[in-house]
């Protein structure tokens, strides 16, 4: 636990130091280049803004309707059996289809439970260790015009499952 926190604390400063230092040594105009990149970063955020509004509204509506409580109660036996916080299951399902829709649910969990709660920690780690399955598959295979995907789905689900188990275990250990 202590090692994990210590490592997490030093990674970002090390990356910043290394990248800027390396840039300086290789004669890059560091500040100007940084500004250009930062501008691109802002563009990325502006691009996802409408998506975020749409999805946060959808999740907000669904939550206010009491649907999640209903689902949570209904699924409690399943989630309790494996030690999964009840909010995580809908997240897992939505995440298979769309990472931006999943983001809406993540923010909802952060808002109601707090990012440092058990559910918040599981969510944070979980979202960092897997990608959306069906979205990625449909976009990538479309590019190659492939229709028979063979063992891709099984492998992807297996990786997601492994990531989920690891997230729960790590969050337990951290708290």
């Amino acid at each position, binding site marked *: 636990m202590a090692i994990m926190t210590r490592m997490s604390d030093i990674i970002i400063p090390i990356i910043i130091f290394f990248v800027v230092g390396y*840039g300086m040594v290789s004669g890059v105009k560091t500040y100007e280049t940084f500004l250009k990149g930062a501008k691109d970063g802002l563009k990325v955020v502006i691009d996802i803004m409408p998506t975020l*509004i749409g999805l946060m509204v959808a999740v907000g509506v669904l939550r206010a309707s009491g649907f999640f409580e209903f689902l949570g109660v209904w699924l409690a036996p399943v989630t309790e059996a494996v030690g999964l916080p009840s909010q995580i299951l809908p997240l897992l399902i939505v995440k298979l289809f769309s990472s931006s829709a999943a983001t809406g649910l993540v923010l909802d969990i952060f808002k109601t439970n707090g990012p440092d709660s058990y559910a918040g920690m599981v969510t944070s780690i979980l979202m960092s260790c897997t990608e959306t399955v069906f979205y990625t598959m449909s976009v990538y295979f479309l590019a190659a015009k492939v*229709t028979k995907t063979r063992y891709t789905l099984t492998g992807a689900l297996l990786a997601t499952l492994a990531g989920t188990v690891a997230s729960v275990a790590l969050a337990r250990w951290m708290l």
Partner: protein
Amino acid sequence: MLNMLWASMILLGVIFAACTGRMSEVTNAALDSAGEAISLCITMAGVMALWMGLMEIASKAGLIEKMTRGIGPFLSFLFPRIPKNHPARGYIATNIIANVLGLGWACTPAGLKGMEELANLERERGNIGYQDKKETAFKGGTAERTASNEMCTFLILNISSLQLIPVNMIAYRSQYGSANPACIIAPAIAATFVSTLVAVAYCKVKDRKGVILDSRQS
């Protein structure tokens, strides 16, 4: 897919609220969520701008290119049957590095080009689904394309996530008042390692079992 998902979330929410008598809550939630999305974007804008700025320096300094070359042995291990000088290798390497560094915008284009090149590789290998339409009809084979082992591995690897620093998650966490938003970095790396390890092991086992079926039949 997302259209269906989004619409059903909204419709389900409103219908459910009508049944439970929570219409006023739904009104507030809809308006509040929209505003909240904007304030979230403002926090995120700072984090993303910082990260992308750093990555721009890394890319200008040739650091990213160097890393791309550095993972050569790893690529040969994962994709032993892609010829060394095939263009697919370069795109796959770029996609993997962009993934590791969390450069979403760089990873999808490279990934899609990589898939196209893998399709070309299948054509070069004489896989029937990948030949020109006329030729296929002449041979009387099906035009349906079957994913090659390389494609399966590439996709599974992408889905298992390779990102080292979960920049978005850190931004979200700080927006919602986490005491230490970055404390998830180490566990996230550990979890990513686990999911990727499982993915690689699975792909290697499957890869060893056999190469694509269609090319053999033809």
